[in-house]
């Protein structure tokens, strides 16, 4: 009996990322739990913050960009925890590790699929925020910064969550570890988004530094993730 030839890692790298993404999307399609939990949680958060701001709509509008990011971060921890812990609980993650797939393909597959979930959440949040705060959140550069920020945040998040779910305190540890690490991203990202909230579009030079900080963060986090992920998922 001849064994089928195992294709080299290079050639199967991108297809396996795609396979992992499709698997996660299909699970989500059947259960719909990750995105729905994130959406519910974000709506509650937004309404809760509005209690804190009182009935002062002017103040709420001023703070809305920061509020959007804070909501995304908090809801993101839920999505990360759910998507990765579910695999740990059902021991399907071990199956993923046994499969002849490069560890970095698993990492990127997870980053892409959870980013997609978070983007779906953001699509809903943007509509909610336009309705609640009457600010131009629909502008293409705003959406682009949201997407870039989400990617970097999830890239850091997958790495941290893969560690935190293997510890004793699990769910409690994730926000403590991840939120401080995500703040250097949110600070420039919120600055860039709020620059686009005025009726007039800002000059490129005004937002250039903030957007490049977001880009630097994305690059650094993905690089660190690719180099260290296999140390995190080792048995």
């Amino acid at each position, binding site marked *: 009996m001849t064994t089928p030839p195992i294709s080299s890692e290079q050639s199967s790298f991108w297809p396996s990322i795609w396979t992992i993404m499709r698997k996660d999307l299909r699970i989500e399609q059947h259960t719909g739990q990750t995105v729905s939990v994130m959406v519910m949680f974000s709506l509650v958060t937004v309404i809760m913050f509005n209690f804190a701001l009182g009935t002062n709509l002017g103040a709420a509008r001023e703070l809305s960009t920061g509020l959007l990011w804070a909501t995304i971060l908090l809801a993101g921890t839920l999505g990360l925890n759910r998507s990765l812990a579910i695999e740990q609980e059902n021991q399907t993650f071990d199956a993923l590790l046994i499969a002849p797939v490069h560890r970095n393909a698993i990492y990127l597959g997870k980053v892409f699929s959870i980013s997609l979930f978070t983007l779906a959440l953001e699509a809903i949040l943007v509509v909610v925020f336009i309705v609640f705060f009457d600010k131009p959140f629909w502008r293409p550069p705003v959406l682009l910064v949201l997407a870039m920020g989400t990617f970097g945040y999830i890239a850091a998040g997958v790495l*941290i969550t893969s560690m935190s779910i293997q510890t004793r305190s699990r769910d409690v540890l994730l926000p*403590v570890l991840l939120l401080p690490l995500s703040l250097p991203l949110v600070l420039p990202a919120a600055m860039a988004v709020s620059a686009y909230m005025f009726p007039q579009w800002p000059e490129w030079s005004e937002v250039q530094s903030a957007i490049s900080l977001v880009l630097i963060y994305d690059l650094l986090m993905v690089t660190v993730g690719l180099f260290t992920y296999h140390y995190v998922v080792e048995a």
Partner: protein
Amino acid sequence: MELAKLNRNTRILNIAAIVVLAIALGMIFFYAPVEQTMGNVQRIFYFHVGSAWVGSLAFLVALVSGIMFLRKPSRKWDTTAVAAVEIGLVFLSMAIVSGSVWGKPAWNTWWLWSPRLTMVTIAWLAYAAYFMLRGAIDDEERRGRFSAVYVIISFVTIILTFVSIRILRDIHPVVFGGAMESAQGASEGLQEFSGLDSMKMVITLNVSVIAFTLVFGAWMLNRIRLQRLTDETQILKSRVAAQLQGEV
């Protein structure tokens, strides 16, 4: 088994650190001239820069030990990383507190949410969480591996702190490699003092940075020795427990 003794290098470094720190303190108070606009308050600056410098140096040491641990797992690198993060946190806290004390007379407020100050606070939080992670893992091998990965990730906050001050507008002056920018900032009226006014100040600053670096080195060696003693005690304890159980 031989207990981790206080070796000669540690002793020499301990004494050198105390002596140079005393010299630096003397220079700060008696040698450095009084700054023209801020007066004596500016003397905090030498202390502030020294501790901020050691803070970032310590986190760099932690990063390197983290990478070394992942390449070749050994208790030695884990201990070095723990010591470096612990000491780095202390010095970063000193930098924040001394900056705050300086900020009150200079900016008329203890705290400002300027990008740099925010970033430093974030770095502080990220490194404080390092100990939460360690505390949540029982398995020694896994604890070493995870904390090595975490120490590499959290260095991103330090990199971004350095990058952000150079590309975002900030009220905080740039000291390392920022003479051009601080001169520019001063001409725009953004900063309270442009670089260092005289040679004496430069010398004092350098001596205090050297003093703080020596204190860091001495502290590292002592902290690593302390960890080794703790480890050895643990081994002895379990050995005694095993023996007692055998007798019963």
